[in-house]
């Protein structure tokens, strides 16, 4: 609901030119004159578009930023936020290059997933795919670059918590009646793929090889495919500890994957991507590694 409202507000800004008239947005984005939480530049006033937004002055005073969290709180998992960039002298900043980086200061690390920033117009930027991979103290580093001028601010979130629902989504337990077949059609029925571990039973913590056979829907071997492999543990949200390599054997639709390794017991999903003659398709195999 709030997201819709944001889009509406953005459209309004686009049409009306800017932020000076937000006082007409009765009730929803009442004018707020507030001190920012910037570093010692307390006398700069920011006109807030949203009651519940967080505001920060960038380090060199160039911009003031408003951060809106549609779901009220950031949580462990995937988040979306909205950022409104104002000039510190007033007026909104359009067509800026905004980058957002989640960071865990106590651990000195971020996340692999990159937030995706989309400009909505009128100084409003929506930021999707803000992934906070664990609970604890997080920061969002927001960098704004425009016309050779770059400045940044850090929003601090001392305690990010897990939400039950998100937890379940990111870390799904194996469904009942999992299909452990080692021969399957790809999603769009273009290729038939089968695999077998060359050393027999797949054992945990061993680097080993797989033999793949790829055929087309008529059962003819596909010898010219480009094949990539991705391993994933849906319950834990992480992948293989190695980077496997695929070798095309050149005959019989045979391919060899070297460097497979599973370092945790349980449900693994190994996805084989096949690209041949300009056609791309993929198949996922379930494994129960003990």
């Amino acid at each position, binding site marked *: 609901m709030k997201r819709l409202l944001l889009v509406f507000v953005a459209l309004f800004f686009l049409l009306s030119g800017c932020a000076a008239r937000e006082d007409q947005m009765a009730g929803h984005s009442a004018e707020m004159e507030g001190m920012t939480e910037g570093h010692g530049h307390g006398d700069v006033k920011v006109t807030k578009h949203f009651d519940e937004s967080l505001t920060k002055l960038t380090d060199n005073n160039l911009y003031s930023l408003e951060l809106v969290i549609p779901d009220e709180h950031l949580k*462990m998992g995937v988040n979306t936020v909205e950022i409104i960039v104002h000039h510190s002298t007033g007026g909104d900043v359009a067509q800026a290059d905004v980058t957002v980086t989640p960071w865990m200061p*106590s*651990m*000195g*690390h*971020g*996340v*692999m997933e990159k937030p995706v920033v989309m400009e909505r117009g009128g100084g409003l930027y929506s930021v999707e795919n803000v992934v906070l*991979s*664990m*609970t*604890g103290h997080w920061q969002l580093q927001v960098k704004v670059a425009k016309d050779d001028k770059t400045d940044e601010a850090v929003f601090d979130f001392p305690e990010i*918590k*897990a939400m039950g629902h998100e*937890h379940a989504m*990111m*870390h799904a337990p194996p469904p009942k009646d999992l299909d452990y077949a080692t021969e399957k059609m790809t999603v769009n029925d273009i290729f038939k793929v089968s695999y077998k571990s060359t050393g027999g039973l797949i054992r*945990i*913590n061993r*680097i080993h090889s797989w033999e793949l056979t790829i055929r087309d829907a008529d059962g003819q071997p596909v010898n010219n495919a480009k094949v990539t492999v991705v391993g994933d543990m849906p*319950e*834990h*949200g*992480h992948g*293989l*500890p*190695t*980077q*496997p*390599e695929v070798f095309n054997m050149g005959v019989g639709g045979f391919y060899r994957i*070297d*460097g497979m*390794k599973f*370092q*945790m*017991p*349980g449900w693994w999903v190994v996805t084989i991507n096949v690209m041949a003659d300009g056609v791309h398709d993929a198949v996922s195999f379930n494994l129960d590694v*003990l």
Partner: protein
Amino acid sequence: MKKRIWRFIGAATAAGLLLSFMNMMNPDSARSMDQHTWTDREKLVLRSLWLGSLDPLPVDPSNKYSDNPRAAALGKKLFFEDKFSGNQKVSCATCHREDYFFTDNLPQSHGMDITPRRSMPLIGVAYNSWFFWDGRTDSLWSQALGPIENKLEHGISRTMSAYIIGKYYRREYEEVFGALPDFMEDTFPQHARPALDDPEALKAWILMTPEQRAEVNRVYVNMGKAIGAFVRTILPEPSPFDIYVEQIVSGKPLKSRMALTDNEARGLRLFIGKAKCTNCHNGPLFTNGDFHNLGVPPKDEKKPDKGRAAAITQVLSSEFNCFGKYSDARSEQCLQLRFIETSEEKYTGAFKTPTLRNVTERPPYMHAGQFATVREVLEFYRSKAQNPELGHDKLTDEELDQLEAFLHALSSPLKSLQTDEK
């Protein structure tokens, strides 16, 4: 209830009849018997953790001396040799104490000075793919060389090491590795090494001829290979847990007293089940050998230890890695290095899962000794119950007690094949 009665009666011998009758009278005791009943799937997991499932020592293709008993005997002497240090007081055994399961009791080890991390336990270390907490080397022999030139640890150089070998270990060295050149003081500098943290030693190193450098490196590497051959022999013996698994798997659990108490068995059930400890602590050495960021508080907030992330380029660029010219392996044998995961983001702040063999007997814990007791470690994991990567579920105080009890059952004496030849 009736079913249970029949099961008991069916299973009982004449003597057992009385026992099962008492079980029915005493619900506590009846439940205790259930503690030792495992499903087929659980038995498979127990078997996978059993010491009997441990493979023979893996061949180290990069060290052709790794199973040479003479090399191991020399390596043992070098391991305990104080001369390989700036103050003549530090040996490998300073921080890897034989009387403390080859680690020490300090949060951060003390060699020449205080190191940033804790000493690693060496039990079954030869089964690892990567060495040190961050895996910055890919073989035991190259691992052994790192501390020698580290200012905080042994604080000497490879040229000094070659001198010491030549002076005190010439005969044993030559028996294994062949002729040893003379390292004369007027031709070889005493402190020369390719070090970025010691300009004097670096200058001395580059002023040597390429042939001299190669000669010194050769001796230095052989020294590491001898130490590696010894350290390989440090292995665990069966613990009460292993005896218990034999009792369970043999299918005759009632013939003698169970090797685990009821409480320990409850802990074991949590360990492989609800508490999900086997996510990382799996296999007969209770480690998957991979690197994980647990969110353990850093020792220095301002300078967090990047762990594995900082080690990836180190191991790839090391002159002493499996691909290097001092390795005895063919490059296709260097599987770990070939398929190394190079994502620094994935491994920031990540450290190697240590073995849990003898874990309760060698506090403190974590890579910088952040926790003084096993209980603190368990409490920490409980506090992280919401973290999906750790996901230990909600555990009660009683369940922590049981897990702790179980961990005690992983203790055993050490088996060092070389111990008698000291």
